[in-house]
């Protein structure tokens, strides 16, 4: 294998959220389909929750990518923490109104009442746990008007569970939990991701044993797996450049390099 293969493989695992990099897995596809069905239902809110790195942002991006062609959908990947700014952004996206000064919630609600929208716009809010309780309460009131439908993502922690209870317990009609991948799912995820980038040789390097080790280290977390594999191929590049690649078996992933990658990324405390 030449250096370019390792470099391409390394780039595959860059930790970026891109709908094009979405990997179709059986369980994930089922969840995604149920999310799409929930959007079609007359629900006020849809909650997407799970531990960090389980693919919530990717889901939201994929949803935006798929729905944007057919209906009005807006995604806020970075939380807008200021209330006036949040409402001004909503007014601009939904009603095409450009506010120069501040806008309060009362003014925004009057705008919602006066407007006559043909379809219900969908607002995708990522990292909703960062919004303040007051703003979340106002988002709830806005969703009650059924003028706007919200899909929000939350980290599943004790704190976020509390927020979900306080603000969405009686209003959310659909909640979908995302989980870490199993060992077999992780193998498919890695190999599909590499093959998508035409890195077939490196995809074949991952056998069940090496994937089990990776799964043991990352616990099936997609973000940790991406970080680990990015470092792994970075190490292969370093060995290649230092002429030490002959010491390694290139037919399969070196467990030593996997563990070294885990040490570098902090997955192993050594």
């Amino acid at each position, binding site marked *: 294998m030449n250096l370019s293969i390792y470099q391409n493989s390394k780039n595959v695992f860059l930790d970026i959220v891109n709908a094009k990099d979405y990997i179709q897995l059986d369980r994930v596809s089922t969840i995604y389909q149920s999310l799409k069905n929930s959007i079609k239902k007359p629900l006020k809110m849809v909650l997407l929750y799970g531990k960090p790195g389980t693919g919530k942002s990717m889901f939201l991006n994929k949803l935006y990518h798929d729905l944007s062609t057919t209906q009005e959908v807006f995604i806020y990947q970075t939380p807008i923490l200021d209330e006036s700014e949040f409402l001004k952004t909503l007014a601009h996206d939904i009603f095409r109104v450009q506010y120069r000064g501040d806008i309060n919630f009362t003014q925004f609600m009057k705008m919602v009442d006066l407007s006559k929208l043909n379809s219900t716009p969908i607002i995708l809010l990522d990292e909703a746990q960062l919004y303040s309780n007051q703003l979340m309460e106002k988002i709830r009131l806005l969703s009650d008007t059924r003028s706007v439908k919200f899909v929000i993502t939350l980290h599943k922690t004790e704190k976020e569970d509390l927020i979900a209870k306080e603000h969405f317990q009686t209003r959310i009609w659909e909640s979908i939990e995302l989980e870490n991948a199993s060992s077999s799912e992780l193998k498919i995820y890695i190999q599909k991701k590499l093959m998508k980038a035409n890195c077939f040789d490196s995809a074949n390097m991952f056998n069940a044993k090496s994937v089990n080790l990776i799964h043991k280290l990352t616990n099936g977390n997609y973000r940790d797996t991406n970080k680990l594999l990015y*470092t792994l191929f970075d190490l292969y590049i370093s060995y290649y450049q230092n002429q*030490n690649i002959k010491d390694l078996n290139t037919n399969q992933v070196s467990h030593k390099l996997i*563990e*070294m990658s885990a*040490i*570098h990324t902090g997955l192993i405390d*050594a």
Partner: protein
Amino acid sequence: MLNTNDLEQRWLRYKIKSYIPHAIIFLSVILILSLISLFMNKEPKIKEVDNNFNIHNVLNEESQNKEFILKETSIKKSHKQEIKPQERVEIPKQNNKMTISPSLDFMRQMQENTQTYFETNPEHKPVKKEKSHGVKPTPKPTPLAKKEEKVFYEEPQEEQIEKKSKSIKITRQNTHDDIKEVVTRFNKNNNPALSLFIAKKYYELGDYHKSYNYALITNEINNDIESSWIIFAKSLVKLNEKAMAIKVLKQYIQHSNSNRASLLLDKITSGKFK
């Protein structure tokens, strides 16, 4: 670019760390197993040692018992001089093999000795036969000892004079040392029965001077004992004092009208008794 050397060193430390618990568990298991095996091996050894110890003890005890029994029997049979000292030495050697065969030898000797004894004492033949039927050649030492005791109890009947005394003493009567013992006893109590017994034994042994003296002493203590006068007269004849013997017998016959004395007088005068 990553610092692979640093990462390799960290990885090596991590591997060593990760193997430490496994190594500890492995060594612990080996240690436990070795201790268990050691413990398991030790137990039977201890038992073996105990068994050996017991066997030796038993052997020693048995050999001591056998020796004791043998000594007793050898003392008892000493007058016949049939048991050789070499045989006594060999018996304990055989005992070392943890067999009780020496006891069987002893039994044979016992049977032989008792048979010869009873042959000389026809009166006790039925008794001997009964006892011999009771004797079983079993290897246990205890019944053998019992048998021996039974034999000893028979022997006091041999000499009525010593009925109440132990059988061992009776078996010593025919030796000069044993006669001396009786003499000592006689000196203490002046019993005419003992002096008569001594006179008879000396007469049997051919010591006619002593038999004459003890018969005379007996007659001085009690002049009505017929046997004493007869031994006295016989001793005089043997000492070539035939005239004196005839004179003494005549005086005794006049005094007691003894038939045995009369018969002896006739034998002496006719020359049948010399």
